[in-house]
């Protein structure tokens, strides 16, 4: 009998355990719905003192859709924030899937960066974002935010908070005329300056004119530094959305942007400074022109045959080795323009074409759409707000842009200037001091990877822009041979100077709407996914087509397939939204 009892007892125990386990999992959903009341209780303790550095140490979870790094923030930025706020930052890198998971779990961490479009609206609806007006949080701790990003806060309130609540603030807030780019613009094209000079700087009228020139450059330099074959162009497919990113840039050289910067409008291209648009697959559009460009490049042996199968880091390594001679984006060339190369006169520089009209966004007082917001589950709303406020203060923005004062830069004769150490550190040729966490300067920056105040804005405390590469001291500091030769040839100090002087830039004015962008309906989303996949696939096939006939045939197939899968419906929906909002504003 005892044996039987034991059996029954253990069976009952196991059942109890299982029921308990399943009860646990099902109760999860219930607890997320109720807002935790603990936030007010625990934050009361941290209000004891005004000096944030005297408060107890806390760790904040920073979820950023833009971060390329996951883990604790290290390096000089971590040291500055720890000293000033006694805060440690835990970076959670994003991506659509990760964002969905966090949204479904009901907790977006303490700071949420760049939650996009429809997700942002849903998050507010589900109560996952903190209202900055609650308990006077913004008024109490957000003086600099109100002063430097007031219009952005207002816009957020109107679009998402029904005019009363505020759920976040836009990035890259600024005001003024002209392009908001830094000294170096967003788009190139860049060529290997040394080789271009050797060819006698031939004139380049249209985008296609680069092809014969790059071919000659390849003949001049057939082998890279390590003896591998050189190419004009090396592309990558891992950033492609509904189209090939590399081919799309062609439109941006001609003043057309992908989308309109406000709506979900990714299969149309809109003129930056006029109320004009073209469809992605328009026959005379810039996307197809871009595909044709790379197709011709491939026929001439200028296109890296690994373009299709390699990943983005492989491309960077090829630039580093000098295997690639042309770059669409200036930042691609960083790995080649090292002090070692430029001191020998080898390096990339901006070589525009006559027809060029590169797109640029103007200063935007409402901020761009990578919003900074606070998760409603945070236990420390006050301290998060203090930290965010600092990021939007001249002091914080300056440090985020140029590193710690006294180490990387300082005020010399009333003007900001990099220190001797700073000049070496910003090119990553020396490590940061151990007390600043060591490592490279660029690795020690804020890993949330999102700007607050536009870096080209003037810092009222120094009288010069936040971006150190725009300081007069920096511009006049011993330019390397490549920069020197470029300045002499082009008659401008920086790329931005040049494009403004020669009027080859199309600046998109800031757009403001009282309403949030329209959410993408389910059937449009579905159709876009289907036809986007086809466009992506055929784009690459077209670039690598063997003959003109094959190119034309693939193009026809792409267009008929994409149309069959709903291209026209998606385009119609996107154009409607554009014409009601950004398009209408540009017409005025």
């Amino acid at each position, binding site marked *: *009998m005892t*044996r*039987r009892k034991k*059996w*029954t007892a253990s*069976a*009952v125990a*196991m*059942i109890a355990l*299982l*029921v308990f*386990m*399943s009860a646990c999992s099902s109760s999860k959903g219930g607890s997320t*719905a109720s807002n935790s009341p603990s936030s007010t209780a625990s934050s009361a303790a941290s209000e004891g003192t005004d000096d944030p550095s005297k408060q107890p140490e806390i760790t904040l979870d920073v979820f950023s859709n833009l971060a390329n790094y996951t883990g604790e923030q290290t390096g000089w930025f971590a040291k500055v924030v720890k000293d000033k706020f006694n805060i440690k930052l835990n970076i959670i890198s994003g991506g*659509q*899937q990760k*964002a*969905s*998971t966090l*949204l*479904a779990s009901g907790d977006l961490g303490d700071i949420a960066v760049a939650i996009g479009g*429809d*997700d942002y609206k*849903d*998050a507010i*609806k*589900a109560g*996952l974002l903190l209202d900055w007006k609650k308990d006077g949080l913004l008024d109490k701790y957000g003086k600099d935010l109100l002063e430097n990003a007031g219009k952005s806060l207002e816009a957020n309130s109107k679009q998402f908070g029904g005019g009363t609540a505020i759920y976040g603030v836009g990035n890259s807030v600024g005001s003024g005329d002209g392009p908001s780019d830094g000294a170096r613009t967003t788009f190139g094209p860049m060529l290997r300056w040394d080789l271009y000079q050797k060819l006698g700087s031939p004139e380049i009228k249209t985008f296609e004119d680069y092809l014969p020139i790059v071919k000659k450059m390849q003949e001049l330099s057939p082998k890279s530094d390590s003896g*591998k*074959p050189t190419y004009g162009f090396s592309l990558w*497919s891992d950033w492609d959305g509904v189209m090939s990113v590399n081919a799309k840039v062609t439109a941006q050289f001609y003043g057309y942007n992908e989308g309109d910067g406000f709506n979900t409008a990714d299969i149309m291209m809109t003129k930056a400074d006029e109320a004009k648009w073209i469809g992605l697959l328009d026959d005379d559009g810039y996307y197809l022109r871009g595909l044709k460009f790379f197709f011709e490049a491939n026929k001439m042996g200028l296109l*890296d*045959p*690994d373009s*299709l*199968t*390699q990943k983005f880091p492989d491309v960077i390594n*090829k630039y580093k080795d000098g*295997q690639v001679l042309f770059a669409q984006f200036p930042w691609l060339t960083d790995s080649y323009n090292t002090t070692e190369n430029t001191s020998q006169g080898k390096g990339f520089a901006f070589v525009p074409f006559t027809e060029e009209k590169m797109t640029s966004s103007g200063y935007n007082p409402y901020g761009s759409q990578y919003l900074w917001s606070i998760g409603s589950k945070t236990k420390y709303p006050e301290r998060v707000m203090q930290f965010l406020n600092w990021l939007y203060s001249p002091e914080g923005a300056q440090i985020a842009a140029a590193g710690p004062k006294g180490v990387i830069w300082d005020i010399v004769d009333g003007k900001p200037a990099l220190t001797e150490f700073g000049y070496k550190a910003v090119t990553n040729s020396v490590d940061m001091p151990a007390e600043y966490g060591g490592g490279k300067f660029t690795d020690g920056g804020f890993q949330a990877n999102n700007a607050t105040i536009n870096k080209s804005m003037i810092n009222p405390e120094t009288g010069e822009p936040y971006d150190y590469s725009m300081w007069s001291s920096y511009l006049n500091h011993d330019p390397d041979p490549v920069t020197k030769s470029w300045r002499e040839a082009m008659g401008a100090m920086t790329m931005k100077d040049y494009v403004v002087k020669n009027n080859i830039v199309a600046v998109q004015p800031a757009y403001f709407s009282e309403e949030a962008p329209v959410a993408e309906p*389910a*059937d449009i*989303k*579905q159709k*876009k*996914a*289907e036809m986007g*996949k086809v466009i*992506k*696939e*055929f*784009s*690459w*096939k077209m670039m*690598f087509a063997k003959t003109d006939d094959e190119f034309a045939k693939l193009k026809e197939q792409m267009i008929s*397939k994409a149309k*069959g*899968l709903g291209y026209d419906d998606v385009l119609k929906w996107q154009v409607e939204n554009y014409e009601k909002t950004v398009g209408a504003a540009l017409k005025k």
Partner: protein
Amino acid sequence: MKANPHHHVYTPVSKKRFHLGDKYQLFLMALPFLLLVFVFSYLPLYGWIYAFYDYRPALPLSQNEFVGFRWFTSLVSNEFQREEVFRVMRNTFAISTLGLLTSVLPVIFAIFLTEIKNAPFKKIVQTLTTLPNFISWVLVYSFAFMLFSVDNGFLNNLLINMNVIDQPLNVLGSDNHTWLSMTLWGVWKGLGWGAILYIAAITGIDPELYEAARVDGANRYRLMWHVTVPGIIPTFFVLLVLGIANFINSGFEQYFVFKNAINMEHIEVLDLYVYNIGIENNNFGFATAVSILKSIVSLILLFAANSMSKLVRGEGVI
């Protein structure tokens, strides 16, 4: 398990106080496992409800738009869409069929491996063939890229230096024999691992059978053919039937890492298609709808395979 001889002696005593009939007792014993099955196999079916909604992760289901069967019908909504689905199914079935055909390779491999008498050599072979199973597909791809890339790949460098070819081959960026090459990568990765079960089955064969066969004058190949092979056929059939049930689940990771625009037409199996259309674009409703269809097809295939097995061998596995 052997029955407890004292069991019945106790029964009348307990009857007086509290007695559970034998069947209840057995039921109680099985209950924890039934619960496990329920929790992990039936409860998740509740998630099928997402197939009928335009699900947005932040909001509770009640606030999401109910779309009925839209995700199901969208699969066949027009001619182009049907063509897409047909292409994807063709890839899935082709790669799965090749997978089933190559499932005899681990059997053959296991038989020959057990025949090796030199123990250290046997160990080395087994370790080397099992090892790839533990390398993730992501690493396999970077390894493949190093071997086969056009620009600086090992194979191209070798062949060009040996003057076998003068133009580098683009192995990864071509659509020739995609189904076959994917199957071969799978075989390379899974051969040793797949053989383990069969090696275990071979070890379980009664040695007396071998002795008897030897006495009857069977040579080594006869032993393999008449003793070893029949000994592991039941194992093979169980795995084959389960494999057929999994026909439509041809996998995801491998095709995800090897896919590119050129080979997409032939590499896009059902799971990859669901990822490209559903998950990548946050369309969980659609992804769920396809997975429901998949479960139904798997179920049909399982029963079909089982009846085939009954027909051919006179016994099924379920």
